C-alpha cells in the first residue's frame, strides 16, 4: 500500500458526472475522520488507465456499468500496474455482479452511495488483498474487449478484434496484430476459454482468429507433430503450422 504515508489516495471512475459528484461529496465527509485525498477522476476506462499508469493511488472507486469498457475489464487491466491499487466497485443494480462479489468477498458499494458504507470500505482498504485476476474473469459474463500489455511503464490496450494470433512462448504469450507484436503474461488455455467464439486452436501453442484465416497451404515438414498444413492469415506474411491433432480445422475452415 501507501507505505508510511498516512493519507489514502483515492481515484474515482464513473461515466456519469453527478455520480462522481456524489462520491466527491461523500469522500469529503469521510475525510473528516479518515485522512484521504482525491487524486483524480476519469469518465471512462481508457482515460482512467492512462491516468493511473502515471499516478500512484491506493484506492480506485470503480463503476461497473460504463460504455466501451466496463469496470470489471478495467480492473483486469489495472492488475498490470506495478503497484495494483485496491478496487472498490460501485453499482446501482447488477444482480449478476453482486452475487459474484458476495461469493468472492470482493468489496462493492451500492448506489446511492452512503457515507457509513464508504467509510467502512475505505477503512478496510488499507489491509485489503487485491482481487485476483481469475476472480475478475469470473465476475464478467462477457469476454474482455481488449487485451493489455505492460511495456516500458505504459499499458497498451490491444482491441481483441485486431488480434490475428496468440502464441505461447516460454513465459509469455505473443499477441500479433497486423502492425506489431505485444507480450502478455497470461495462460493460453484461459484465453482460449474466454475467447472461444473468436479464436481456434491450430497447435498446442497457438490460437488464431477465425476471421483472419485466409487459406491453407501444404508446406513445411511432414512429421509426427505436423501434418504439413500451414495456415495463412489476412494481412500477414508468415505462415503458421497446424499440428496433426488439429488437422481437422483445415476441413472446417478451408
Amino acid at each position: 500500500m501507501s507505505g508510511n504515508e498516512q493519507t489514502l489516495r483515492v481515484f474515482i471512475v464513473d461515466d456519469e458526472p453527478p455520480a462522481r459528484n456524489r462520491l466527491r461529496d461523500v469522500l469529503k465527509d469521510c475525510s473528516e475522520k479518515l485522512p484521504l485525498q482525491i487524486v483524480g477522476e476519469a469518465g471512462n476506462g481508457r482515460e482512467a488507465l492512462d491516468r493511473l499508469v502515471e499516478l500512484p493511488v491506493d484506492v480506485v472507486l470503480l463503476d461497473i456499468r460504463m460504455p466501451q469498457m466496463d469496470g470489471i475489464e478495467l480492473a483486469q487491466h489495472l492488475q498490470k500496474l506495478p503497484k495494483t491499487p485496491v478496487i472498490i466497485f460501485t453499482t446501482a443494480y447488477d444482480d449478476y455482479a453482486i452475487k459474484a462479489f458476495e461469493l468472492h468477498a470482493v468489496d462493492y458499494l451500492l448506489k446511492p452511495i452512503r457515507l457509513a458504507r464508504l467509510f467502512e470500505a475505505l477503512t478496510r482498504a488499507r489491509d485489503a488483498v487485491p482481487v485476483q485476476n481469475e476472480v475478475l474473469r469470473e465476475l464478467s459474463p462477457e469476454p474482455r474487449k481488449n487485451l493489455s500489455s505492460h511495456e516500458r511503464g505504459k499499458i497498451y490496450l490491444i482491441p481483441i478484434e485486431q488480434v490475428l494470433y496468440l502464441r505461447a512462448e516460454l513465459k509469455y504469450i505473443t499477441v500479433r496484430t497486423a502492425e506489431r507484436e505485444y507480450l502478455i503474461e497470461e495462460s493460453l488455455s484461459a484465453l482460449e476459454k474466454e475467447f472461444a467464439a473468436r479464436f481456434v486452436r491450430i497447435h498446442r501453442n497457438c490460437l488464431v482468429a477465425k476471421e483472419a484465416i485466409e487459406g491453407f497451404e501444404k508446406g513445411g515438414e511432414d512429421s509426427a507433430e505436423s501434418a504439413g498444413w500451414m495456415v495463412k492469415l489476412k494481412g500477414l506474411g508468415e505462415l503458421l503450422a497446424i499440428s496433426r491433432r488439429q488437422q481437422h480445422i483445415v476441413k472446417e475452415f478451408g
Partner: protein
Amino acid sequence: MNNARSIKQNAGADALPNFRNLGITLRILLISNGMALLLALMQAGGWADVPQRMMQIATLLTPILLAMLVLLWAAQPWLDRLGYWRGVLAVNLSVVAMTLATYYLGGELYRPPNRDDGNFDVVRYVLLSVTVSSTLLMYFRLRTHALSHALHDARLQVLRARIRPHFLFNTINAVLGIVRTQPRQAETALEDMADLFRMAMSDARDLVPLQKEIQLSKQYAALEQLRMGERLRVDWQMQDLPEDALIPQLLLQPLLENAVYHGIEPLPQGGCIKVMLRRSGDELQLKVENPSLPRSEGTHRGNKVALRNIRERLDLLFDVEARYQVESGNDFYRVEITLPYVKERPKIKERSS
C-alpha cells in the same frame, strides 16, 4: 371508435363483444366460415366434392352472416343496454329470424320445387344457425375472461417491468450528487420522479391524454439527461397531434427508456433518440428510433420485458386495430406503434356499470 369503452368491458363482468370492432368482425367471419368448411368436409364424399358442398352452404350462410353483421353493428348501443344474458337471447333470436327470413325470401334457391320434406330443411338450418352463433358468443365470453386475467397480470407487472431498478437507483444517486451544489435542479428531479412513479403505480387500464404521456416522457428524458448530460439527446418531431387523443398510459415512456438503456448508454459518445409522433387519418403513429452499437460488439443482453409488456397491452386494448413493428439494423433500432385515434369519452365510466 368504441375502444375506450371496450377496455372497461374486458375488465368487468360478462359483456357482449363490441360488434363495431374490426377484430371482432374478422373473428366472426373466420370462425363461421371455418365451421362451414368443416360441415362441407363431413358431407362430402371425396376431395372433389368439397368445393361444391362449401358453395351450397355459403349460399345460405353468407347472406345471413352479412345481414347479421350489419344488424349487430347498428344495434350495438341498444344491445349494450340489455345486459349480457338478455343480449345473448336477442342475438340468437335475431339469428333465428334472419335464417327464417333468408330461407323463405330465397324462394327456390333454398326450396327446390321437386323436394317436399315437410319442414326438415328449415328446422335444421335454424338449429345450425343457433349453434354457430352460440358457439361464437361462447368463444367471445371465454376470450374476454382470458384477456381480463392477462390484464390483471399486466397490472401487477407495472412497476417491475416499466421502471428499471437500474434507472431508479442511478437517478437517486445522481440527485444526491447534485443536491449540495444545485438544490433547485435536485428539487425538479425529485418532482419529475414522483410524477413518473405515480403514473407507474396507477391503474394500467386507463387511457390518458396523449399530451400528458408526452409531458411525462419529457420529464423522464430530463432525468436521464441529468445523469448522462450531453451524451443523451432527444429529438421530438410532432405533427398534427390532436389535443383530444387518448393513448394507453406509459406507452411512450418505456420505449424511450429502452432506447436509453440498450441504445445510448453503451455508446461512449452517446447519441440522439428520435421520437416521431403523428396523426394520419384515424390513426396515431408513434416511432422511437435510437442508434446502437454495431451488433458484433453487442451489449444487448435482450431485456425484452418492457417491449413484450407494451405489445400485450396493445393487443388487449385494441386487438388488431393496433400494430407493433420492430426494425433493427446494424447500428439502429426502431419501434413503431400504430394505434387508433381514440377521443375523449366522458361517459366511459357510466357505461361499464
